[in-house]
């Protein structure tokens, strides 16, 4: 696939030995720390960069198979990201809650994500902190260096920034198409080099 890209869209290179590619097209770095991989679902064509820590071992108590973290398609987990499912003590019981992430979600590097639900087509910047039980709806955009306090709800198509994260503006209507093209283009350009 190398060499057929346009000259204006250079490939994003990675060293071939670093990433494991699965048959559904997921590219997981060997230097990422994945705990409890049997509880993690990757949707396909998802990239997990080096240094990322995904805690699939923090599962809810209970019998049977539990899905702790599920990611959609064309997602990107940046370098050094920490993804931990949120926990709560309710009426004396301590429990972890599953974390669901939609498709086409790009998470920037060194971000700590403890949200409960992230919708599709969400773009999260780098060095962010997403508090526990945050609900991020579709097509939201979170700027770099944002701190989102726990239990926040981020409505669809909003742009949040600052610490504590505040609503800045509404994103244009074509955001969904743009983010989708961006994530698909990123995956296509992400090539061993």
């Amino acid at each position, binding site marked *: 696939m190398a060499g057929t890209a*346009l*000259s204006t869209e250079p490939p994003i290179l*990675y060293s071939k030995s670093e990433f494991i590619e699965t048959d559904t097209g997921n590219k997981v770095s060997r230097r990422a720390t994945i705990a409890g991989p049997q509880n993690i679902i990757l949707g396909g064509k998802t990239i997990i960069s080096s240094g990322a820590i995904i805690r699939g071992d923090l599962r809810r108590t209970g019998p049977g198979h539990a899905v702790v973290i599920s990611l959609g398609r064309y997602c990107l987990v940046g370098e050094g990201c920490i993804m931990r499912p949120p926990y709560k003590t309710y009426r*004396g019981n301590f429990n972890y809650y599953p974390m669901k992430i939609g498709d086409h979600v790009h998470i920037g*590097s060194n971000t700590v994500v403890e949200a409960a639900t992230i919708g599709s087509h969400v773009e999260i910047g780098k060095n962010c902190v997403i508090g526990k039980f945050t609900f991020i709806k*579709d097509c939201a955009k979170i700027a770099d260096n944002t701190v989102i306090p726990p239990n926040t709800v981020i409505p669809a198509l909003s742009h949040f920034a600052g610490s504590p994260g505040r609503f800045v503006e509404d994103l*244009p209507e*074509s955001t969904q198409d*743009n983010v989708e093209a961006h994530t698909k283009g990123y995956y296509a350009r992400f090539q061993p080099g």
Partner: protein
Amino acid sequence: MAPSVLYHCPCLSTSSVPPPPHLPSSSYSFHPLNTLFFCEECDAVRCNQCVSVEVSSYYCPNCLFEVPSASVRAEKNRCARNCFMCPNCRNTLAAVPADPPESSDGRISGSVNEGPYILYCNHCRWDSVEIGITFEKPTGLAAQLQKFEDSAPDSLEFDRLKEHFDAFLRQSALAASTTAAASAALARDIPGVGKYNPLARSTNNRGYGKDKSVNRDEMTEYRSRSEISQAAGGGELDVELMNGLEEVDEVASLDQRWESSWVSSMQTKDLKPIRIPLHSKRSKRCPACTHILIKPEQKSQSVRYKIKLVASNYLPGIVVVLPHVRQAKEELLKRNLGKSVSAQAEEPSVGMVAGRSYEFQLNLTNPLYDPIEVRLSVQRVHVSTAPAKEGVSPEKAKRPPFAISLPTTKFPISPFAEAWEYEDDEDMFGVEDDELGIGPTSATVKTTKDKDGRARPKTVGVLERKANKTVVGGEIVIGKEAQGSVKFNMLVSYTYRSDDPAPSESGDMDGHNARAPEIKTFSFYTVVDLGPIIPREEVKLDL
């Protein structure tokens, strides 16, 4: 500053020629493509500033509850449920059970505590105990606070104002017993009788009406409930407060105080939680033909649209790249291969130096299902005051002198189709100018091999074509004394063949598809911003 291409929206002005980009006011009319709309009826670009906007639905940004428009007015555009904003940091407040007195653990204690509930901010740790508000149940907080709100001075004043004006309006409504239509009919039939406009009457308390008017008097004077000079805060009280201040934080900031429409106390400890204002979903219409451009779905959190006429589905997208910057980035990437993001070397600031010439590439994407032929042309800037030559004096050179060369002929771009349909198109090149083409290789920048004595790679003209994108190269020569940033207006006109039979040709009822291909042309202006120019003096200093 990355090079960018912005699109011009004429915003209903009569001339479609955009202002020259060196004027600071020109940034008002140029927008990125993803914020623009396209009206099919008028065949014109519309931007957020010229569309007419209507509210389609309201929702609370915290509980995402859709509020019907009738309740919106009743609740004064705020959420009627449990959504409050921390007065300190504007984060949303959570209703938590208050600490049991003997427990020293965190907020959420182990035992089931049905005690009083308080509002708590989990970012700045403010809680409503500080102002003494507690609740019996964790739901219906707004109702529980309702009586506090109703007795607030501003809402009492507002009610009084409303009563006063209500009486007045009722009086004027009785006088306006004739409708506008009847009075218009009368004005037509009998010359000399002016039209009776009920709207003008109620807002003007002098008797402006002609005949048919009962001379309504002035409004009775309004006496407010509390005199302004005795309102809370202000004056002596403030001075005493300032004298006794221990920390600056005790005074509420302007940001925190001007939300309310009434003068409130200046101390932070008196700030009350605010109900969260509602957000709205809007639908947009074209200002000229009132065709709907954007119509969102009813569900408040759905991102889909019933009608979505965005410009990126009609106009070709343009991305501009400076190859020398990109090459520097590529070398950086190769050096950084395998390193983590934080350990990467810093990007050197590569820009354009005055006095040299650079090439730039435009990547055009065709969003239509038909192939298009595009022609680019640079708009000549008429600067009447400054002489348009190089070496112009710096204070007049607001417009840095530079020369642009772009391919002038038309070039085609393939239509948009699924990825699997593109197998044949990968190695297509356009041959432009007099340069001879090279044999088929992969889609990279071609270099001509000295066929006519020139060792330079071909820079001006169509460089590559892949799928529905075409890369076109151009060149820019920067004058020696140039300053500022390189921005030029570019007119893009493209023609496409639309297969739809035009309505006027509906008599053309053949058996097969009535392919009366009409060639349609559309043109729009863009401004291409290649970034700032590094003046030559700076470069010399580095040596």
